C-alpha cells in the first residue's frame, strides 16, 4: 500500500487481519474514496497501473490520481442518488510513466446500515491486452464466434466494434441461423457495458401474460401466484445489455411498454407504484420483416423507429460466397477436436454436395450437418455417406421439382427464388426436428441441443409443425 492504514478486519477470521494487505491481494486496481471523492486508500495493483508508488494519495481528489477521461468528462459519482447502484464505464487513463492505458472502471457506492453513502469503491481493470486481442481478431476476420471473409461479412465485422462503442439501440435482422445472437453478444462484449450483464429474452417463447412479468418484474401479491418479488429482465440487465430476440413476436401491448421504457428508461414492475431507473442498452433481433408487419398493423411503427437506430442486416449463407468453405473447414476442425477424432478433410463428392446445398437454415444448419458428419465418420475423411440423409433427398427433390417446374411453366424460373426456399424450408425444418428427435431417442433437451436451439424454441416449432410430444 502507498501508506500504512490502521484498518483491520475483525470477526471474520480467528485473528484480525490487515485491510490493506487484503486489498493488495486483489488483482485489479482498487481505490477507496470518501463521499467527496477524495482518496482514502489505493491497492498495490492500482499503484502499478497508475505508477504512483511513492505518492501519499490519502485525501487527494480521485480525478488527479486516476487521471481517467471518465473522471474528468463524466464522473459517474456525480449523478448518483441514494437508490443508485454500481456503474461501469470504459475509458482510458494516463499514468505516471506518460502511458495512455485503456481501462474499465466500476464505481460502486458503499452504504451504511441506514442507507447513507459512506464512500465509493472504484475498481480499475487494465484492458490493454483485451484490446490487442480484439484488434488481432478483427484483422483475422473473426469477432467472438463470427467468422467470415466475404465482403458482406467483412463489412459487418468492421461495423461491430464501432457500433459497440455507442449506446444506441440496435436492430439485427436476418434469416434464421445467420448469427443474430452472436452479433448481439459480440456487441455487448465489445462495448463499455461488457462487465455488466448480458440478458437474453426470447419474446416468442413465452405466453403474453408470463412475458410481461418476465420482462418488467412484479411485486409480491401483484397477481395470483406472485408469491415473491421478481426483478424482471430489464432490472437484471441494469448496467448491461438486454437482448430481445424474436422481437417480431412481441405482443402489441408489450410493444407499448417497451416503447415507454425506451422513452423514459423507467421500469414499472406489475403491482408496483414506484419505478426503477434502468441503465440498459436494448438490442433487438428478428427474422421477420418488421416493415411488412408495420403495414399489417402487427408491429408499432414508432417502436420500429426507436429500435432501428442502428440496423445490422446479416446476409444468408447463400450470399456469402467463399465463407461457405471457410465455415465448413472451421466446423470440421472444431468438432473433430471436440469429439477427439482425426478427421482431416472432406471427400470431393461430399464437398460438392455440401457446397451445392442451399442451406435455408444458414450457418446453424451447416454447423449441425458438420457436427452430424463428424459424429458418424469413422475415417479420416468425410464422405457422402456420413452426411445427413435429408441433404441428398432434398437435393434430389429440388432437382425433380425444378424439372417439373420447367416443364409446367418455364416463366417460374425468372421469379424470385426466395419463395421456393421458404416453401421447402418448412418441410425441411419438420424433417430436421424429427431426425433430431430420433437421434436423441425422443429426449427433447438433447434434440434441442443437436439442433442448436433452446428447449422452448423446439417446443414452439414442434407445435408449429403439429409434431406431438
Amino acid at each position, binding site marked *: 500500500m502507498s501508506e500504512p492504514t490502521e484498518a483491520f478486519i475483525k470477526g471474520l477470521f480467528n485473528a484480525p487481519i490487515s485491510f490493506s494487505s487484503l486489498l493488495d491481494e486483489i488483482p485489479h486496481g482498487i481505490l477507496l474514496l470518501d463521499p467527496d471523492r477524495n482518496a482514502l486508500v489505493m491497492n498495490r495493483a492500482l499503484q502499478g497501473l497508475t505508477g504512483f508508488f511513492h*505518492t501519499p494519495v490519502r*485525501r*487527494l481528489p480521485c480525478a488527479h490520481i486516476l487521471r481517467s477521461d471518465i*473522471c*474528468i468528462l463524466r464522473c459517474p459519482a456525480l449523478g448518483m442518488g441514494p437508490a443508485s447502484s454500481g456503474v461501469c464505464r470504459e475509458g482510458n487513463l*494516463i*499514468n505516471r510513466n*506518460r502511458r495512455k492505458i485503456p481501462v474499465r472502471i466500476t464505481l460502486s457506492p458503499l452504504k451504511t446500515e441506514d442507507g447513507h453513502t459512506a464512500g465509493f469503491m472504484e475498481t480499475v481493470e487494465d484492458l490493454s491486452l483485451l484490446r490487442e486481442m480484439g484488434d488481432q481478431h478483427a484483422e483475422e476476420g473473426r469477432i467472438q464466434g463470427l467468422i467470415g471473409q466475404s465482403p458482406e461479412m467483412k463489412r459487418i465485422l468492421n461495423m461491430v466494434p464501432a457500433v459497440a462503442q455507442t449506446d444506441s439501440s440496435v436492430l439485427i435482422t436476418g434469416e434464421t441461423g445467420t448469427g443474430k445472437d452472436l452479433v448481439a453478444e459480440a456487441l455487448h462484449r465489445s462495448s463499455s457495458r461488457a462487465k455488466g450483464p448480458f440478458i437474453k429474452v426470447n419474446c416468442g417463447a413465452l405466453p403474453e401474460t408470463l412475458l410481461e412479468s418476465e420482462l418488467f418484474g412484479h411485486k409480491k401479491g401483484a397477481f395470483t401466484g406472485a408469491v415473491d418479488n421478481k426483478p424482471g429482465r430489464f432490472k437484471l440487465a441494469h448496467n448491461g445489455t438486454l437482448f430481445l430476440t424474436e422481437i417480431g413476436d412481441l405482443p402489441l401491448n408489450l410493444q407499448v411498454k417497451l416503447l415507454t421504457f425506451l422513452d423514459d428508461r423507467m421500469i414499472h414492475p406489475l403491482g408496483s407504484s414506484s419505478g426503477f431507473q434502468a441503465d440498459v442498452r436494448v438490442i433487438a433481433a428478428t427474422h421477420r420483416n418488421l416493415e411488412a408487419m408495420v403495414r399489417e398493423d402487427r408491429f408499432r411503427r414508432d417502436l420500429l423507429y426507436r429500435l432501428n437506430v442502428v440496423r445490422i442486416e446479416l446476409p444468408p449463407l447463400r450470399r456469402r460466397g467463399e465463407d461457405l468453405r471457410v465455415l465448413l473447414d472451421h466446423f470440421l476442425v472444431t468438432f473433430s477436436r471436440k469429439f477427439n477424432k482425426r478427421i482431416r478433410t472432406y471427400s470431393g463428392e461430399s464437398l460438392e454436395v455440401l457446397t451445392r446445398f442451399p442451406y435455408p437454415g444458414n450457418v446453424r444448419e451447416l454447423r449441425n450437418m458438420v457436427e452430424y458428419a463428424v459424429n458418424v465418420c469413422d475415417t479420416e475423411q468425410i464422405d457422402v455417406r456420413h452426411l445427413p440423409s435429408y441433404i441428398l433427398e432434398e437435393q434430389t427433390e429440388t432437382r425433380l421439382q425444378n424439372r417439373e417446374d420447367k416443364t409446367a411453366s418455364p416463366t417460374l424460373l425468372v421469379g424470385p427464388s426466395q419463395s421456393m426456399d421458404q416453401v421447402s424450408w418448412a418441410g425441411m425444418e419438420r424433417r430436421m426436428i424429427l431426425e433430431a428427435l430420433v437421434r436423441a431417442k425422443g429426449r427433447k433437451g438433447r434434440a434441442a441441443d443437436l439442433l442448436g436451439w433452446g428447449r422452448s424454441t423446439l417446443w414452439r416449432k414442434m407445435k408449429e409443425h403439429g409434431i406431438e410430444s
Partner: protein
Amino acid sequence: MDGLREKVHKVLIPLFGDDVAPRFDLVNEALIVILGPDGEVRDHRTVLLARASAEDLCHLILTDGVEVVICGGIEEEYAQYLSWKKARVVDSVMGPWNRVLDRYRQGRLKSGDVLFEP
C-alpha cells in the same frame, strides 16, 4: 529552469477549475503567465480552447512562444514533441494552480510534486 528564471519567459498551466488539470489532452482552459527575471508576474491571461485536444494545445504553446508547461498527466508523445520544440515540461504536478505557480517562481517545482493541502 534556473536559466529561465534569469529572463522573461512564458509559462502555461492547463486548468481544471482552480487546479492544475489532471490531463493535458482534456482541458478547455489554460493559464498563460509572463514571468520576469526575478520570478515576478508581469502579465497573465486565461485562454479558452474551442475543444479539448492535445494537438491544439501544443499548437497554442508553440505559436504563443511558451517556454515552460506545468501540467498533470501527459502522453509521452506530446511531452517529447514539446521538449523537441524547446518547451520544458514539468508533468504529474497536482494542486491548486496558484500554489503550483508560487512553487515554480521560487524555483522549487519539480515533476510529480503534490501541492494539495493535506
